């Protein structure tokens, strides 16, 4: 059975958390994609950029254009509100993970 769609659905919330974790250090989009890829999280640009904008509009991220190099790049960084949300989300994921372990009771590999 194709689990791609299920994975996409599950990833939606998960990716927001990952972005909030990764952006403790200021990064621009492509840099983030590479960084996340190295850490084993694959994300497409068409998902990443709109997601970061949504988080920014919610006040969880902040952004600024850096034009000091020959190429203008937009850097994102987590805000204080973002850190609070990130910690809450991380807690939820931790609890969900424990719950799955309890529920599967050794039947699910």
């Amino acid at each position, binding site marked *: 059975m194709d689990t791609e769609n299920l994975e996409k659905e599950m990833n939606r919330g998960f990716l927001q958390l990952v972005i909030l974790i990764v952006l403790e250090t200021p990064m621009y989009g492509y840099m983030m994609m*590479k960084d996340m890829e190295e850490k084993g999280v694959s994300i497409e*640009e*068409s998902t990443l*950029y709109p997601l970061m*904008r949504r988080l920014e509009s919610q006040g969880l991220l902040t952004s600024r254009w850096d034009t000091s190099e020959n190429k*203008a790049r937009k850097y994102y960084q987590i805000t204080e509100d973002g850190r609070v949300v990130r910690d809450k989300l991380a807690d939820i994921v931790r609890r969900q993970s424990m719950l799955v372990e309890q529920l599967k009771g050794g039947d699910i590999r």
Partner: protein
Amino acid sequence: MNKKLEAYLSEVGHYVSGPKGADDILDEIRSHILDRAQEEFGNSDDESVDKILAKMEDPREMASRYSQGQDIIAPYYRKHIILYTAFLFFIALGVSVVSLVLGKGAIHLLPFFQSSEDNFLVFLGGLPITFFTYFGIVCLFFMIITKYRTVKPAWLMVEGSGKRLGKPTALGFLGTLVGFLLVLLVYSFQGEIVSFIADLSIKNVVVVKIPDILMDAILATTGIDLLVYSLRFLANTPVLEAAGAAFKLLVMAYVVRRPFGFENLSGLDGGIATAVEVGIRSVLVIVVVVTTIDLIRWLMYTFSEKYLR
């Protein structure tokens, strides 16, 4: 400047908007494509950028990712636009038909649109104006409730208002046929029947000959019912019911506005015949209203069948 890149961004920009404007989004995508070209091919020349563009998502799809949850009209409401417009439009049309049937001086399509019944072309021209005006009103309504989501309209269950077109049956056909034949029988022998009752000379019974025009109308109406029911065996569609209701309204429009001239055969007070005429006219008005409602419901059902399935 890479032409393909600018064309891609222009296409994306056609569909996106954001709090900081489309330019901010496009600048970021441009920066991303150039970075990716640099990373994957060692430079960001035209050839490399073209290769990256080939891997990028379709511009419209890309733009739609930015617009998720920012619809001007929510998808759920969008599918109701035509239905609600049709609802308002047919109410306006129904009011116009009733106005026409009752012989009022003007045909009201909108609160501000009136046309003389003498000028039918103005009336026809008013139909699209009315439709699109209501379309605009409905869109505006949905835009507002999309923006302020706390407003939850009570949705009208208007997909036929619960009315469903069942399959025509032999029994139903027989009933319609018998009804028509009975009317035909009375129609053909009315003179004899009335004379017979009048000859009985029963006291205090008013015998009034139904005027020919009214009998014609009753015969035509039952004939339309029979025809519609028969045609439903060939194509069971609500359009037929709507057309039948429309034709019946036309027949009534023709009849109601003409003098009936009841013939009082019982020799009783002539005022009674007038009272009978007033009574029958009142019944006709009720029938017109009911038929108009029926017409609206079948037309809406037709719309919902056609556009919402």
